[in-house]
């Protein structure tokens, strides 16, 4: 719990920054837009319709879609970063528009016609009528919209972790992946607390203005102002500091550990400052290192080969590694430092007892029983080429298949909720839960060598960091990776602690 609390100030500050900026931008767009809609009735349908459509996009999808959209802009030569703060801010701002916009329109429309007649009758210009009568009277409704948006944005901002923006979502995403309930709880409580705090502060300002309670307005505004000032101050770059080397990770335990290992390793070896940017989406990661938004990632040769290069054929392990390396360096301009020394392949896994009872050792054996069995796999497995290859080569046809979070997959098979899973070969839970990995006897699953990949910019600007990374090549074999994974998944250690132990062990060697 204490480790989690140590992370809280940083995550909370980042979350506050995301939320406040998105809300300011959202209100800055929505309120004038809402006013414009009430002046020109023809605008109402298109504007509210568009905002409504944006709102129906699931929030995670809206965040995710910003990454390729910004990458597209970047490829047109516009200097934007496709991951991190920017996509999160844009998506959250869009998300805050509808409630504020709709309430602005409703609030202004709701002003009594007699008051509008009186406003005109006493000689107000249209602008004076808006400022002195319509907006003040619509304010409680507009503020209600702002409060709705606040609660939504604070909640949705937790989903900006996979697009690379640090938030309280980091607790939740890493907590879910590493079975760390303390982390999940910290993230949830902090996000809920922040939502309630901001909501109540805005409510106090509004009710104070309405009831003309100067002191209440002053106190609540002061607290809000302090929060804004603090968020702004924290966003200022620290003067004199060198550039921080960023190391990305996907959303599973092994990636968290490796990002920490690489970060600590480079920091120890070069004295440069490093930062692990965790829980990024699968495809976000490679795009980000190509764009130079990340400096270092670990990806797998088979993933590059099948997903990014789109190859359907499957030569041997060495050829895949060499092909992927060549493609990354020649097509993408990246530097491949080398393999870490293990592969993390997909492997079909079953409970040992069930495999023994059915007499299943290989995938070919499994094919005969598949029609009575169910399979569970991570989110991408059923979309991947190896699944197609497995189905076609072995004639696998399961009674049912479902996608689930990788962290839950192992428990699901151990509990008998599913019979077969798409296990990862380096996962420590295979041994711990007494699962067997079925042999891919016809060799259709590609090799997945873990490769250290470095951005062109880092290779150019920090050759010492690249040299330090080169010393890690071949240092982690499969069983070592399994042990490290297991000490997080089941041993209650954090990825950072595991990384510290790894470094300590390496220093002794």
């Amino acid at each position: 719990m204490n480790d989690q609390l140590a992370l809280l100030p940083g995550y909370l500050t980042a979350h506050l920054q995301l939320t406040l900026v998105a809300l300011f931008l959202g209100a800055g767009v929505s309120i004038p837009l809402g006013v414009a809609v009430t002046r020109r009735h023809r605008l109402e349908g298109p504007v509210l319709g568009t905002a409504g459509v944006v709102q129906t996009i699931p929030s995670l999808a809206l965040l995710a879609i910003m990454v390729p959209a910004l990458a597209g802009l970047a490829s047109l030569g516009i200097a934007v970063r496709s991951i991190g703060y920017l996509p999160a801010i844009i998506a959250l701002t869009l998300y805050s528009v509808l409630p504020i916009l709709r309430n602005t329109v409703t609030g202004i429309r709701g002003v009594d016609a007699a008051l509008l007649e009186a406003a005109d009758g006493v000689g107000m210009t249209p602008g004076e009528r808006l400022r002195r009568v319509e907006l003040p009277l619509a304010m409680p409704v507009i503020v209600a919209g702002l409060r709705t948006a606040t609660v939504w944005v604070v909640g949705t901002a937790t989903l900006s972790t996979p697009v690379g923006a640090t938030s309280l979502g980091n607790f939740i995403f890493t907590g879910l992946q590493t079975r760390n309930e303390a982390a999940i709880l910290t993230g949830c409580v902090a996000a809920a607390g922040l939502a309630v705090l901001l909501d109540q502060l805005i409510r106090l300002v509004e009710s104070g203005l309405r009831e003309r309670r100067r002191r209440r307005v002053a106190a609540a505004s002061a607290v809000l102002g302090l929060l804004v000032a603090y968020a702004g101050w924290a966003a200022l770059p620290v003067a004199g500091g060198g550039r921080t080397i960023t190391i990305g990770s996907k959303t599973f335990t092994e990636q968290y550990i490796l990002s920490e290992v690489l970060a600590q390793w480079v920091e120890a070896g070069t004295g440069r400052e490093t930062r692990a940017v965790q829980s990024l989406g699968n495809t976000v990661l490679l795009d980000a290192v190509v764009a130079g938004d990340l400096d270092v990632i670990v990806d797998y040769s088979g993933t590059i080969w099948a997903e990014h290069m789109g190859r359907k054929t499957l030569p041997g392990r060495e050829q895949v590694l060499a092909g992927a390396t060549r493609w990354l360096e020649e097509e993408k301009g990246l530097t491949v430092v080398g393999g870490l020394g293990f592969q993390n392949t997909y492997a079909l896994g079953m409970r040992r007892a069930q495999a023994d009872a059915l007499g299943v050792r290989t995938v070919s054996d499994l094919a005969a029983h598949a029609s009575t069995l169910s399979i569970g796999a991570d989110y991408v497995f059923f979309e991947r080429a190896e699944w197609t290859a497995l189905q076609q080569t072995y004639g696998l046809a399961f009674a049912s298949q479902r996608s689930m979070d990788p962290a839950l997959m192992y428990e699901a098979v151990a509990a008998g909720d599913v019979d077969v899973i798409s296990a990862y070969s380096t996962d420590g839970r295979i041994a711990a839960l007494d699962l067997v990995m079925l042999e891919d006897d016809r060799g259709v699953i590609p090799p997945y060598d873990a490769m250290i990949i470095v951005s062109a910019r880092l290779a150019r600007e920090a050759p010492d960091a690249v040299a330090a990374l080169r010393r890690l090549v071949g240092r982690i074999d499969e069983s070592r990776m399994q042990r490290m994974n297991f000490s997080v998944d089941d041993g209650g250690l954090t990825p950072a602690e595991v990384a510290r132990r790894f470094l300590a062990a390496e220093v002794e060697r």
Partner: protein
Amino acid sequence: MIVLEQLSKRYRETIAVEGISLRIGRGECVFLVGGSGCGKTTTLKMINRLVEPDRGRVWIDGCDHRSTPPHELRRRIGYGFQQVGLFPHLTVGENIAITPDLLGWPAARQRARAAELLEMVELPPGEFASRATSALSGGQRQRVGLARALAAEPEVLLLDEPFGALDPLTRDRLQRRFQEIRTRLGLTVVFVSHDMSEALLLADRIAVMHEGRLLQVGTPRELLTAPSHPAVAELLATPKRQSEVVDGLLGIRA
């Protein structure tokens, strides 16, 4: 002086006002009366451009009123209507001083003017100036509405049923108060009412409207003695009969 010249207004196919011409002298109080939908409110609102006429012109002191921007015109013309439209987010005093505020009067002068007008409509300023409008009774609201219309010292006052929906006693008191104020300040007033008794009591002249047209314009006595149209006679029948009943009860022979 206000001159209405061939004013017409249509809403889609419906004729609201058709070819109204009328002269209202300085310091005169002219009532526009008639049944619902006769066009009296539309005519009134065309004077301060709350409604823009389709055809015809309005001259105020010799100037075409379209030569002045609507908001400037309205700041010079007091306007009061039945719903009053007091701004709920402002105090009674702020409501009264709204037009002076728009005209940029200094705050102290605004407050003094609001207090003066509250006195005039018999609401003690000490008690009412800083009150919320929600704490007023119906009669008090209409008095504040009248005070607001008078705030910027207009020479012309347009009133649309300002004493509607009040109990008879309050109404009577307000009518008499209004009469005093108007004569004291020498106001030119155009007053819309559907109540013929009110018109007979307060008007210098009465303009009777029917289906968007003027039927007859004359002093109360002229209308009573020589109605030019059956519809005018009909409008006058009720107050006449009422006064005959009262006279009869008091033993007076007409």
